[in-house]
């Protein structure tokens, strides 16, 4: 397998674009990534596009709008892990020697309000019973509180931290720093989670150009290597217990990459609620079981070391246009590892991780699919 590098990244600021077609959002991100890579358009040998519900052949429609049509294009749907799964396919094609430079894009325009689970997955039993995405996370909070202790202030603190990160991110949807009181006073969604502890719906697009050493050599120290791209599927194991699919995927990715959780300086994960972020600290192996809430209380400190989670503001701050999130997470980590993250730069960041999880299926304990990417400069 050949080494695979991120040659360029680009995105449009996440937010609301009522008058801009999704193709235009995607084209802007793709052209930004291509410009950042500094390679000619003719160098792109293939394209991969992730989205959830933007209709057929979105990738081709975006390429057409960007003047880049006429290359092999694959569209990928894996719920919130759509564009990160597209990146997994691109990574494999470059690693296998099929292509030297490809573009991966994610784009989505969303309706406001709760995700309509019973429309996204026809006839889903738990959706019909009233399950919503925030309420699922709220049930995990109920369990966590019973096992390890957890307060509403802990859950609010994560939102405050991520709003502080997002305030310095020009691509973030919400850039106003929040206070604990404000987060607690926002409307209750599903106890104990308030609105400001849950991610918004968003419009947006993101893109990365990945390639082989043939192009990365010209970038010298600026090239960031995707040491491993890993995709894993969820399963029914009977009891909604650990290890869940995120924990399995992370453990496998660390082993395949020869990188341990103790090496990770910066991470972006599918923190769709503040509870989800706390669980990710543990499931990604950054801390042990029950220690996630201690990280919150210690301001990111785990005792022996410090890692920064959601440097770009996470899903709460940056926004969450479903199909665009996975690649946007990678863009943020690339900026961090290059030292180009401006006021939100994590000093000396050398190893980064991204995690995306997509889909909830009745009767399956895990999310449907999870991706983990490990990147290093």
């Amino acid at each position: 397998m050949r080494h695979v590098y991120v040659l360029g990244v680009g995105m449009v600021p996440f937010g609301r674009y009522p008058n801009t077609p999704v193709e235009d959002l995607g084209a802007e991100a793709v052209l930004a990534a291509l410009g950042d890579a500094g390679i000619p358009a003719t160098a792109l040998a293939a394209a991969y596009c992730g989205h959830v519900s933007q209709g057929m052949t979105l990738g081709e429609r975006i390429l057409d709008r960007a003047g880049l049509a006429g290359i092999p294009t694959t569209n990928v749907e894996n719920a919130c892990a759509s564009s990160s799964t597209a990146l997994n396919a691109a990574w494999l094609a470059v690693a296998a020697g099929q292509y030297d430079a490809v573009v991966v894009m994610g784009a989505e325009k969303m309706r406001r309000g709760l995700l309509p689970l019973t429309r996204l997955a026809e006839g889903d039993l738990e959706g019909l019973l009233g399950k919503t995405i925030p309420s699922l996370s709220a049930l995990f909070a109920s369990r966590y509180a019973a096992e390890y202790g957890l307060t509403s202030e802990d859950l609010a603190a994560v939102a405050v931290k991520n709003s502080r990160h997002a305030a310095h991110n020009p691509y973030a949807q919400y850039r106003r720093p929040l206070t604990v009181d404000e987060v607690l006073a926002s409307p209750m969604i599903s106890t104990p989670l308030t609105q400001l502890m849950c991610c918004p719906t968003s419009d947006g697009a993101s893109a990365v150009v990945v390639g082989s050493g043939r192009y990365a050599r010209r970038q010298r120290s600026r090239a960031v290597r995707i040491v491993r791209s890993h995709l894993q599927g969820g399963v029914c194991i009977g009891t909604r217990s650990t290890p869940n699919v995120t924990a399995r995927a992370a453990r496998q990715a660390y082993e395949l990459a020869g990188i341990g959780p103790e090496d990770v300086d910066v991470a972006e994960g599918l923190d769709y609620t503040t509870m989800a972020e706390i669980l990710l600290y543990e499931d990604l192996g950054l801390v042990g079981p029950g220690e996630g809430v201690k990280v919150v209380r210690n301001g990111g400190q785990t005792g022996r070391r410090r890692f920064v989670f959601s440097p770009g503001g996470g899903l709460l701050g940056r926004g969450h246009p479903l199909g665009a999130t996975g690649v946007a997470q990678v863009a943020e980590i690339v900026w961090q590892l290059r030292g180009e993250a401006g006021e939100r730069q994590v000093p000396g960041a050398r190893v980064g991780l991204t995690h995306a999880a997509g889909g909830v299926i009745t009767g399956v304990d895990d999310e449907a699919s999870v991706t983990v990417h490990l990147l290093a400069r």
Partner: protein
Amino acid sequence: MADAVIVDVPIKEDVFTPGDFRTEAVSLRGSRCSRCEETFFPPRRFCPRCHDGAAMGGVTLSRRGRICAVTHVARPAAAYKQAYSLALVDLPEGVRLLTQVAGPADALVLGAEVDLVVEPLFETPDGQRVWGYRFVTFDSASR
């Protein structure tokens, strides 16, 4: 104009044991794999442990379970007009299912025993009354 005709439908075809779910005390139906002895809900044809359907059969699930996680959903899913509570409920068969729960707020706590009630959950815009299930706290079930 005549009154709209309401049609009673189950929330899912295979989740209740045989009988008229509107008038009889039906239970929830799961699947059990006699090879690995794991029980599943909702029912499935193939065992995800054994990757095989040969040893799978239907099983009637207990009507009493225990709350293992609970949340009050203030912002309900689109089909619902009012807030409700959701829980993960553990059944003696080893099944942990997501369900609505009802009862006094101070009784909907972890460890509380709850009983199955089959009842309408919501009506669709095209006139279907959807029958599902809730688990209710022991005291309110025997009211």
